[in-house]
């Protein structure tokens, strides 16, 4: 599909960077998209382990009925901060890291369009999470109202540290907005000559659309936390009935952000899978343009379904029906995507290296999450499932075996390009099989717990749920431990390993594979010609 006129690749690493600062200053001051991409990815991984540790606390407490290890209030802080960290600290920064590393190389640009802003968007993130985590140690504890911070839990009944929570969310939002602006400007203005819109790699397309979603909804989240702040500390009554406000309105505003947010966390995954499946099927992607249109329609529809999170708030019947049908409509473009991936594999010459294993697992398991989503979209059924473990199972299938698995797949696929070394395939296979088995032991039985009526976000449960919770917890510990294999693998891959060629996967397509491995510090300083 694409070919490049060879350009001067002899400029090496050292030529360019002898005057650059060394050590920690290199990382603090860097404006290089590859450095910043690396920072984002490491940050995301550290947050993944931190949020994971909190999940281990949750699963340890739920291993048996009754209260054993932690206070209920601390349990609530764990569920809240686990959710916040995984959404804003692990998944979103991982995607921004991938965007930084890959988008310039994929479109033949020398760097991101706004390199200095890029440095800022990363470096404010560690501050935001330091603030959030430090609030856990304050008197009265950290946020304990769920990652969705419903009023009045987050206003009337919240701890004093809520101001810190609000402040940290503001900073995270500013960081993602700056990242999104950078991505859009880069894609619009820095494409190499001949890189027309319908030649853009799917990852670039999906990120472009994600960036627009971010710009549309992160400010609304900022508004929501600001209203919580003023309600709690400055006497306004946005969400307080006594002062003429309305707590249900909080949910409308939050989910106007919240539902597009879940697509922010999955669209880039669609781009990653659309790169990996063709490479290991040795066939071009089936239905490229339908993929582009499907992504765009998912993004637009995502603004019309927010109230499917609120079926039980007593909406009038016509609103329940409207949101039910709109929600079901989204599964049509989503289905188009799954169909296209399967059609790409159909009669391909498949091979199953680790990136492909994660990609195939993504397709199967994400689809399970889509199906449970459809069940939840049925309004009368949702009255039964709402706020039970069924919802927990649903969003962990789409987020862990969806978003996180795609990030893992991406890491394996592009690690040779980033480090210049092949990762250890045996270890990769171990990581995959341990993860895929344990993740299903962890999340599949949650469907049954939810159907049987076990509520979410409660540290105790009735004894009929005991056996299944024990299985779930064992799956959880196993999944957590399995991720340490990945940590070892990445460190080994950075330190050494078999030398990676420019194009380690024979079926892969795209400009990034025309660069040597590891990709030089400065690439495409003269734009390649895309034919």
């Amino acid at each position, binding site marked *: 599909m694409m070919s490049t006129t060879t350009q001067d690749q002899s400029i090496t690493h050292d030529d360019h960077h002898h005057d650059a600062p060394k050590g920690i200053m290199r990382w603090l001051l860097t404006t290089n998209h590859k450095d910043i991409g690396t920072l984002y990815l490491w940050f995301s991984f550290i947050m993944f382990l931190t949020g994971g540790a909190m999940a281990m606390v949750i699963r340890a407490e739920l291993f048996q009925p009754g209260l054993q290890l932690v206070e209920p209030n601390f349990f609530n802080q764990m569920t809240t901060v686990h959710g916040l960290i995984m959404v804003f600290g692990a998944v979103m920064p991982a995607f921004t890291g991938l965007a930084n590393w890959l988008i310039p190389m994929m479109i033949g640009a*020398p*760097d991101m*369009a*706004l*390199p200095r802003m890029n440095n800022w968007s990363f470096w404010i993130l560690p501050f935001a999470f330091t603030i959030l985590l430090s609030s856990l140690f304050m008197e009265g504890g950290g946020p304990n109202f769920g990652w969705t911070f419903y009023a009045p839990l987050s206003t009337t009944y919240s701890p004093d540290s809520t101001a810190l929570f609000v402040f940290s969310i503001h900073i995270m939002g500013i960081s993602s*907005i700056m990242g*999104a*602006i950078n991505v*859009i*400007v880069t894609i*619009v*203005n820095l494409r190499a000559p001949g890189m027309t819109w319908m030649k853009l790699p799917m990852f670039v397309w999906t990120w472009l659309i994600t960036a627009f979603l971010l*710009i*549309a*909804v*992160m*400010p*609304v*989240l*900022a*508004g*929501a936390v600001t*209203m919580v702040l003023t309600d709690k500390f400055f*006497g306004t009554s*946005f969400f307080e*009935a*006594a*002062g003429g406000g*309305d707590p*249900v*309105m909080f949910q*409308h*505003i939050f989910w*106007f*952000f919240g539902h597009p947010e879940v697509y922010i966390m999955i669209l880039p995954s669609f781009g990653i899978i659309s790169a990996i499946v063709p490479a290991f099927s040795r066939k071009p992607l089936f239905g490229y343009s339908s993929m582009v249109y499907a992504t765009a329609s998912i993004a637009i529809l995502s603004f019309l379904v927010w109230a499917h999170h609120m079926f039980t708030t*007593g*909406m*009038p019947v016509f*609103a329940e029906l409207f949101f039910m049908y709109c929600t079901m409509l989204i599964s049509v473009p989503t289905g188009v995507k799954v169909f296209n991936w399967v059609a790409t594999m159909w009669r391909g010459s498949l091979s199953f290296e680790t990136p492909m294993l994660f990609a195939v697992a993504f397709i199967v398991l994400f689809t399970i999450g889509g199906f449970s989503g459809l069940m939840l979209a049925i309004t009368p059924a949702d009255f039964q499932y709402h706020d039970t473990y069924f919802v927990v199972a649903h969003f962990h299938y789409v987020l862990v075996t969806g978003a996180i698995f795609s990030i893992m797949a991406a890491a394996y696929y592009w690690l040779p390009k980033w480090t210049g070394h092949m990762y250890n395939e045996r270890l990769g296979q171990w990581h995959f099989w341990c993860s895929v088995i344990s993740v299903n032991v962890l999340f599949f039985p949650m469907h049954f717990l939810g159907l049987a009526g076990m509520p979410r976000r409660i540290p105790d449960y009735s004894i009929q749920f005991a056996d299944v919770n024990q299985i779930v917890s064992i799956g959880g510990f196993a999944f957590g431990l399995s991720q340490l294999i990945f940590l070892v693998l990445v460190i080994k891959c950075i330190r050494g390993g078999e030398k990676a060629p420019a194009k380690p996967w024979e079926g892969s397509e795209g400009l990034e594979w025309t660069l040597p491995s590891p990709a030089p510090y*400065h690439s495409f*300083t003269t734009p390649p010609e895309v034919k």
Partner: protein
Amino acid sequence: MTNHHQPDKLKSNHKLISMLVMGCIGMFGFGFALVPLYDVLCDKLGINGKTANTASSYQAITIDTSRIVTVEFISQVQTGMPWKFEPQTKRLEVHPGELIHTVFLARNVSDRATVGQAIPSVSPGQGAAYFNKTECFCFNQQHLAASTSAELPLIFFVDPQLPESIHTLTLSYTLYDITDKQLASAIEQGAAK
């Protein structure tokens, strides 16, 4: 690598950036605009169970004796508020158009004066627009001295236009303690004088 950009590239960067920043600011404003938008929409469509905050007039209403609507009253007190608050009658059968008097009983069981504000809500939400109050204690704040009680009056009628599908209207009052807010605004006003 900005030094590689041609001037027109930079210009188009700036134009795009300012458009995107404007978009962000616009969406931040939109988040706040959702507050009045939501209220207006609910009000126009009459969907969230909110009743009018002012008295409606009872004039030229014909009583529909062929129909009986059940009106139920429930009451809640905000956690921690030292009042008891209950409807005298929990359930009434009324004809649409009929003017009904009823009372709620409130008692301050603490040893300090307290100010309360009752917030009404009607279920099903679509019925709210047809529940008309000509007099209600919820229109005003209620002051109760320590260990005193009061009978709070409510006079209402059900609009005869009430959709046929609705047979029962439930009126719920939640009572909020606004003593501190009262104090704060009194002090503020005092300071302003």
